[in-house]
């Protein structure tokens, strides 16, 4: 019997669906999982992915990708490349392994949800490939990170981070739970494939791959490039879903896209912004975080939303202003609270590095330079303990990152301002106006306790620094510290320094 040609069977296979006679459609596709909302059920019949793939084609391609990635890894395993990597770059990879490996697993569950509850056979079919992709990403990221545990225990957080109550892990779980786990599949298709995968994964996987190669970390570049090749295929679940939703419920489409873009931008400022502008050695930096955001995220995002008839988000000005502030402040926060993280954050504010920062971000010295100068003078005076924290940063009730975004007043002064909200008998604080707005509109959903909330509720015992570190799962062999204080303070050694905590001048 002759085999059918591809075009003769694919149209049928990719879109298998049938009418139910023993149960209602609602029983199979309940609203709380399928989320059709104002979209008539039959409208989903028009759902069509632009790039079609069959299972044999998928398996053959993925097999090649896996073989290539693991061959490079096997070849490099016997080399001493890792030993020669810069500590700052290693930190970028530790942050990535811990922050990403089990986020990929959350994406497996999101794809499986779409594979079960998606409102069109072609969509469900595409989501099956998507979940296989995400399972591969979970495996490869966990396995590549695992290799280094014997050399450095911080790599153990590749698998551990997401399962702890570390504040960074809480923030990421909060983001990905809302994006991938708790939502219905229509919202998931907009949040995960459309906003996050067509946009923000470029940041961590494309930008960081370039910096990885420049830093000599071929293995890491190879791993994340291999992952990124999958994104283009399964991320196309977003477009057809948005197209249908916009037609029947543009307000919902706009809201879901807007809030996800914002939440992703906040998290990636911490994850990628710090890696690109601080942890990557100066001589290996390809672009600043801001430049990369402008080229890869902003232009593309604006084109995408306009193409589908949506508007720029309501917070657009606040977001653009944040490109000069957020990741610099988060870097300082991660550095100051370094015992609470599973990597070794390099301050990276030597004279040359500051000149680069000031060139890329003209306000950097004015907003951040003064604080780093006091920290530098304390280190040079032999008072490193004065640079360590004795309390918690206040964490935003929406993004769970520190409230650390200075804004400029009309008079020109830069201050971290408060964005409070009284709701349900208590006061919440937010890092930005948009985080407050998202909390208010989503308050029945995004309402997790921050680490500060947990501390004040007595969930962390004893209520001291040791208790907090224990609650977060940090042990002395893993707690972060700056890998080389001299590297960024020696340029300033010997300069006069007043107004330090350790000197009499500190007291009026």
């Amino acid at each position: 019997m002759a085999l059918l040609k591809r075009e003769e069977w694919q149209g049928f296979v990719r879109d298998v669906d049938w009418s139910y006679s023993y149960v209602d459609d609602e029983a199979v596709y309940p609203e709380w999982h399928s989320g059709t909302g104002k979209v008539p059920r039959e409208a989903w019949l028009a759902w069509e992915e632009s790039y079609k793939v069959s299972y044999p084609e998928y398996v053959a391609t993925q097999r090649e990708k896996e073989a290539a990635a693991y061959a490079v890894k096997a070849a490099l395993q016997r080399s001493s490349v890792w030993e020669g990597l810069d500590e700052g770059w290693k930190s970028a990879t530790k942050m990535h392994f811990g922050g990403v490996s089990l986020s990929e697993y959350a994406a497996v569950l999101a794809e499986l949800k779409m594979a079960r509850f998606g409102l069109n056979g072609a969509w469900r079919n595409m989501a099956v490939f998507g979940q296989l992709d995400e399972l591969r990403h979970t495996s490869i990221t966990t396995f590549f990170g695992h290799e280094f545990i014997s050399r450095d225990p911080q790599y153990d957080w590749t698998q551990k981070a997401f399962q702890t109550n570390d504040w960074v892990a809480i923030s990421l779980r909060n983001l990905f739970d809302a994006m991938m786990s708790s939502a219905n599949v229509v919202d998931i298709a907009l949040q995960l494939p459309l906003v996050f995968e067509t946009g923000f994964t470029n940041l961590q996987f494309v930008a960081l791959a370039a910096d990885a190669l420049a830093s000599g970390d071929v293995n890491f570049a190879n791993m994340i490039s291999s992952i990124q090749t999958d994104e283009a295929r399964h991320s196309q679940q977003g477009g057809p879903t948005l197209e249908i939703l916009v037609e029947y419920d543009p307000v919902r489409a706009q809201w879901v896209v807007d809030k996800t873009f914002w939440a992703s931008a906040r998290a990636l400022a911490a994850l990628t912004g710090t890696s690109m502008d601080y942890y990557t050695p100066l001589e290996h930096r390809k672009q600043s975080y801001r430049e990369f955001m402008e080229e890869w995220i902003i232009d593309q995002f604006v084109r995408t939303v306009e193409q589908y008839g949506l508007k720029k988000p309501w917070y657009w000005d606040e977001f653009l202003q944040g490109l000069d502030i957020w990741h610099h402040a988060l870097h300082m926060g991660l550095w100051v609270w370094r015992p609470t993280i599973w990597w070794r954050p390099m301050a990276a504010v030597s004279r040359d590095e500051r000149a680069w920062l000031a060139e890329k971000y003209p306000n950097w010295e004015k907003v951040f330079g003064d604080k780093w100068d006091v920290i530098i003078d304390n280190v040079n005076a032999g008072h490193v303990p004065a640079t360590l924290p004795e309390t918690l940063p206040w964490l935003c009730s929406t993004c769970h990152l520190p409230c650390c975004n200075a804004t400029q007043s009309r008079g020109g002064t830069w201050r971290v301002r408060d964005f409070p909200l009284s709701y349900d008998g208590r006061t919440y604080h937010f890092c930005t106006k948009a985080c407050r707005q998202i909390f208010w509109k989503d308050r029945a959903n995004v309402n997790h306790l921050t680490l500060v909330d947990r501390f004040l509720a007595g969930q962390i015992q004893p209520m001291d620094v040791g208790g907090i570190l224990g609650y977060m799962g940090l042990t002395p062999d893993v707690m972060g510290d700056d890998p080389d204080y001299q590297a960024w303070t020696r340029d300033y050694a010997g300069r006069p320094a007043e107004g330090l905590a350790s000197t009499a001048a500190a007291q009026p």
Partner: protein
Amino acid sequence: MTAEPGPEDRPPELVPLNAVFATDFVQILVPVTTANTMAEVAAAVAYHVEGKRVRALPYEKVVIYQGERLPAEMTVAAAGIKPLDHIAVEYDIPERS
């Protein structure tokens, strides 16, 4: 017959605050009590930042709450500052004449 006890007569209660010191880059958690004066509150906030991230200046420090400068001797209870409220602490730098 004695007068009804006011807030100042109660035993001090813990008041965790969201605080920011002058030009510092982040809001921090600072616990004070209802009996603390604004001078003590300012010092409690400054302890975490002054000379550590913000260079110490030879001026008095003032607490700003809901846009108002509060007197140094006023207590947290008298000021009506409640748990989880936000305060800013600033140097009282004389205006240049």
